[in-house]
């Protein structure tokens, strides 16, 4: 069977599973729709969080980025995992104890303010929309490359699938489909990783092959011979300060992303929230510790397959032809000597490769069986769809719950609230689809935005809301607004208006760290210059801090052994 046939089979199979789960988990009331009845076991929520979090960018993009950045790619590895420690220790248990539906809910209630709620709603929607456009694009790319469907039709198929389970099942449907999607994506990621590790080092475990094999050593040598920096060379493309700031911004941004935070509202109790953060990171770590192995192996393989090879021969390769038609790979014999030279300078290098195709092309470059290639395509779709659905729910609940129910029509009945929720999911899918088909050229650029804004807005306000009783409405609003303003102006200035990165050369990706610090300081100072929060709010904070639920029966938390 060819790759196309296998891909069709896998895609149809997995989509049928998603649809079936969506149908089985349809819901009627708002608690089911927005927080899955708060009945998701810790392990399942961990898997759902992992799928929710690992997007098309994690699945397809990250290993590629690491592959071209070497050590400097560690910013993504540490940044996108380290945030879970902050989330698990500082935010998740308390937000679960608070036990409402959305992130703006917490901000609005804790700071007894409609303005604060509204600022949070706007930030949540902006962050989520930015992110979801990229996911739909990912769906389109997989379809166009592996099924030779045009991007448009691919995006529409993806929209229909997400619409089905998200509109019917809300958070509950999304949760259980995400569990299935995690399974698909992790299998799809690990099988080629194991195969390549085995091929190159004789050790099937990618993490061990990476550490104890000699591929990275050889790659260092090859890179230096070609005139690149050694693969393990730190700070080859970014300064130490920039690496530090970007890592912190990604960590804090991760902890502040609304679609990740809401997942912790869906577990039964505080204790399950703590454990499910651990499970989530464990499931994520399976992929994230394999990624650097894939990154280095793929680069080593690619250089070997392309460099110093006769261009006529390389052009015959099936995968080279297919990627060239997508324009993500360009081979051009610039000095006309008949062979390909891969050099660090773009003007003389015969190879131009988009980091996005590293993971998707790896199985083909390594000449793995067609079904493995197809499985990777299905995994990419699972990653993109699961993240998209989580984001769409945040957009929907921000409008249906925080704007419609809390601000416009507090009298709304259960039925009305769920109906508005469903309509908003539908609407959000249409907008996401539109951006997927007509991607604004700046999608890649605005991802820095999503993290920067999450870091500069949500994280400090939630953190202080729990850990500093004195923080009041005035402080929180002033903090969020100044953090957001500073970060937005800096990112827009550097990315679009040619402003020099005047803050010690920190790039747009890392400036969220400074925005967060500004937010923290402003919130603390303004809070202390204005009246303390009312007694009932202080009591609410006290309550968040008190030991919560009694330890539950084993079955409820998915933990095997209790001491």
């Amino acid at each position: 069977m060819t790759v196309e046939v296998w891909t069709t089979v896998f895609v149809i199979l997995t989509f049928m599973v998603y649809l079936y789960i969506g149908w089985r988990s349809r819901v009627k009331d708002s608690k089911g729709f927005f927080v899955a009845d708060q009945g998701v076991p810790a392990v399942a929520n961990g898997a759902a969080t992992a799928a929710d979090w690992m997007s098309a960018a994690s699945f397809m993009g990250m290993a590629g980025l690491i592959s071209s950045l070497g050590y400097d790619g560690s910013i993504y590895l540490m940044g996108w995992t380290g945030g879970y420690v902050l989330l698990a220790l500082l935010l998740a248990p308390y937000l679960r104890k608070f036990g409402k539906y959305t992130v703006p809910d917490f901000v609005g209630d804790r700071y007894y303010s409609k303005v604060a709620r509204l600022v949070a709603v706007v930030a949540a929607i902006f962050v989520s929309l930015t992110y979801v456009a990229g996911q739909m694009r990912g769906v389109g790319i997989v379809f166009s490359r592996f099924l030779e469907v045009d991007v448009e039709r691919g995006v529409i198929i993806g929209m229909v699938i997400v619409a089905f389970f998200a509109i019917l099942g809300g958070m509950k449907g999304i949760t259980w489909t995400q569990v299935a999607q995690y399974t698909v994506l992790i299998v799809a990621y690990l099988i080629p990783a194991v195969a390549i590790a085995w091929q190159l080092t004789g050790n099937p475990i990618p993490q061990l092959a990476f550490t104890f094999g000699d591929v990275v050593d050889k790659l260092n040598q090859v890179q230096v011979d070609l005139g690149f920096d050694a693969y393990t060379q730190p700070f080859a493309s970014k300064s130490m300060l920039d690496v530090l700031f970007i890592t912190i911004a990604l960590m804090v941004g991760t902890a502040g992303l609304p679609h990740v935070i809401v997942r912790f509202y869906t577990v039964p109790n505080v204790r399950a929230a703590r454990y499910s953060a651990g499970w989530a990171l464990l499931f994520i770590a399976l992929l994230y510790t394999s990624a650097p192995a894939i990154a280095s192996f793929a680069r080593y393989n690619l250089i070997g397959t392309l460099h110093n090879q006769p261009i006529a021969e390389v052009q015959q390769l099936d995968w080279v032809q297919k990627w060239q038609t997508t324009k993500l790979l360009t081979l051009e014999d610039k000095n006309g000597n008949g062979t390909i030279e891969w050099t660090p300078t773009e003007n003389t290098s015969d190879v131009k490769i988009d980091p996005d195709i590293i993971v998707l092309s790896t199985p083909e470059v390594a000449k793995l069986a067609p079904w493995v290639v197809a499985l990777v395509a299905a995994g990419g779709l699972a990653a993109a769809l699961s993240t998209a659905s989580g984001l769409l729910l945040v957009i929907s609940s921000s409008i249906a719950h925080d704007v419609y129910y809390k601000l416009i029509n507090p009298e709304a009945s259960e039925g009305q609230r769920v109906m508005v929720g469903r309509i908003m999911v539908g609407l959000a899918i249409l907008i996401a689809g539109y951006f997927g088909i007509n991607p604004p050229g700046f999608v890649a650029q605005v991802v820095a935005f999503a993290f920067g804004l999450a870091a500069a807005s949500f994280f400090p306000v939630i953190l202080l809301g729990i850990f500093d009783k004195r923080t009041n409405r005035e402080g929180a609003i002033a903090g969020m607004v100044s953090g957001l303003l500073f970060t937005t102006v800096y990112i827009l200035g550097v990315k679009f208006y040619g402003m020099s990165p005047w803050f010690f050369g920190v790039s747009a990706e890392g400036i969220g760290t400074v925005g967060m610090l500004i937010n923290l300081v402003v919130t603390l100072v303004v809070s202390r210059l204005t009246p303390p929060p009312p007694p009932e709010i202080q009591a609410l904070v006290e309550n968040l801090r008190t030991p919560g639920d009694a330890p539950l029966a084993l079955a409820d938390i998915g933990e095997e052994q209790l001491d």
Partner: protein
Amino acid sequence: MTSPRLPSYWRQNTALIRTLLIVWGFVSLVFSILLVQPLNQIPIGNLPLGFWMAQQGSIFVFVALIFIYAKQMDKLDRQYNANPKQK
């Protein structure tokens, strides 16, 4: 929850968080970034240690930290729920 027991529960909780976050910061920000160059002089397997910390080791530690926190909080919770009189 009666008020006299709360402060000590909260104090123990924040002390635990502080300890774990110090480890977190050292592993990721200090060892993997600020001290990566000196640590790279030491090999682990076939990789330089600093590089390995940044791409593998720190992630393993993160997972461990979260589970340690959950376990320790279980103990603390049990202590405070099981014996209401105990300080």
